[in-house]
């Protein structure tokens, strides 16, 4: 069936080597070129702008490259404020959602209690409504309790987005741990807590770590909730970028911010996705 090159065996005479040529992958080339054009080019443009000092229409390439706007951007107090706020917010949200969700994920994966399936599926609810509509509904509640434009209001609205991820991914991680492995540890003399600490957690660790990393990065870049609940008092990095874009400030500010903030998160996310695996990732969204 498939084109396997003939392998000479010890007993038979070696026939003249016949390699069957694979037909050239034209479809693949087409997709590759098209996607490169659409996906890569816009990002390259941003990258170029970040290191440009002068780029006047209609030149194809910038007239002058340089790092001038990096120092200008980094000299802005609002950039640093937003960065520290974002980091603080993101850390709080990630730690909180881990504390809240991981024990629950373990319970969903390993314990049996009434209503387990229904409760687990109910976490899908956050994905079953149009997101921004949901945020507006929450903002309506926050308005009454005075959480609008406060740090904790933004933390709570971020939890809405992270709950689902931090429950579903760790549940599958815990479920993937072989029960026999835990039983073998009990057999060796470890109590339930010791088993969890020495066996279950290290086994599920990489996936849980990936989920936390994804939570961190997603929260860092979350724009809609932060804008709706936080703006203008609570200015996270994405909110700051929106105002840069809206105010048509120096073009390079946005570009510098994009490059600066995005490269590390890209590395983090690529790592996270490798750990979780494409299949599990898609399944998390119900594919």
């Amino acid at each position: 069936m498939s084109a396997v090159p003939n392998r000479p065996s010890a007993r038979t005479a070696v026939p003249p080597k016949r390699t069957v040529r694979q037909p050239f992958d034209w479809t693949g080339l087409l997709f590759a070129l098209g996607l490169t054009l659409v996906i890569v080019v816009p990002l390259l443009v941003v990258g170029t702008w970040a290191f440009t000092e002068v780029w006047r229409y209609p030149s194809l390439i910038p007239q002058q490259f340089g790092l001038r706007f990096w120092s200008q951007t980094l000299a802005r107090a609002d950039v640093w404020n937003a960065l520290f706020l974002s980091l603080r917010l993101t850390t709080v949200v990630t730690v909180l959602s881990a504390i809240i969700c991981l024990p629950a994920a373990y319970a969903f994966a390993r314990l049996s209690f009434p209503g387990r399936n229904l409760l687990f599926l109910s976490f899908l609810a956050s994905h079953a409504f149009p997101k921004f509509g949901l945020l507006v509904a929450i903002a309506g509640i926050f308005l009454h309790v005075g959480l609008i434009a406060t740090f904790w209001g933004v933390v709570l609205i971020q939890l809405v987005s992270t709950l689902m991820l931090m429950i579903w991914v760790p549940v599958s991680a815990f479920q993937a741990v072989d029960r026999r492995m835990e039983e073998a540890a009990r057999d060796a003399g470890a109590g339930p807590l010791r088993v969890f600490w020495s066996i279950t957690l290290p086994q599920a660790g990489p996936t849980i770590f990936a989920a936390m990393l994804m939570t961190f990065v997603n929260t860092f870049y979350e724009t809609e909730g932060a804008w709706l609940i936080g703006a203008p008092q609570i200015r996270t990095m994405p909110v700051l970028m929106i105002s840069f874009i809206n105010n048509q400030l120096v073009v390079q500010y946005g570009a510098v911010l994009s490059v600066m903030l995005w490269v590390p998160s890209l590395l983090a996310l690529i790592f996270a996705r490798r750990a979780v695996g494409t299949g599990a990732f898609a399944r998390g969204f119900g594919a």
Partner: protein
Amino acid sequence: MAMLSSTLPARARAPAYGGAIIGLALVAMPVLLLGWLILYPILAAIVETMFPVGADGARGFSLASYRFFFSDDYSLANLRVTLWTTCVCGLLLVLVGLPIALYLRFSRGRFASYVQALAIFPMFVPSIILSYALIRTIGPNGTVDLVLNALGLPKLPTPYLTPWGPVIGLVWDNLPLTVLMLTAGLGQISNASVEAARDVGAGPLRVLVSIILPRMGNSLLVTLSFAVLGIFSAFTLPYVLGPASPEMMGPFMERTFSDNNDPLNALTQAVISFGFCLVFGLFYVRSIARNRESRR
């Protein structure tokens, strides 16, 4: 041996009972948050818009805010542009995503891993950075203009600040999940069943139409539902890339809530969004629940 000399009192029933208590205790916190941050706001939004506080301070049943929405030309225009954007994006996503997914599932070509990496790549690009990149690329005097100008071709009208701006951004943004979910769906069609069809003489197109597509129905619908739920109330991309009027529901709700300080109408718009997405949401939840059942 770690043995204690005394035996425990008999309590054959106790652990199962204790397990239920511990289990419920462990899930209580996120479940409460879920109730407070998702279910309660939705119910409250419905109650608040249908039983608004009247001028006399008392609540009474009234659909006035809904009547206003559906009689206000501006609101209706926003709803129309939202529906249009959602339909166009859904269609484009399937037209672009399905061929890529098919290629990734069945090709062993040399470009497969590159195509996969690129198709998934936008997942790592936050929408705010994407918005910025698209402004610089397809906006006025952007890269597309530069290239056309250098080639001596006439300028194209820029999609920036037209309804096509959000469409381009949303398709870009939703492409990875569409491809991933469709590829996962295609993964459930075994090579053997395709090979069996080829074996009895079906050509590639015939295989696609008779073997693959009929079994893709559910995956396609789940994928579309997920995309629709995301697109219908998208905020960042339409806000930055789209026209100021008419605007999509996301920016519209935000402006009504924050700039106009009019939570009642913003909530009404939110409830109307829920209504339009209800079918997709229910379908999405139902198929995931079913998937979980069958996987057990």
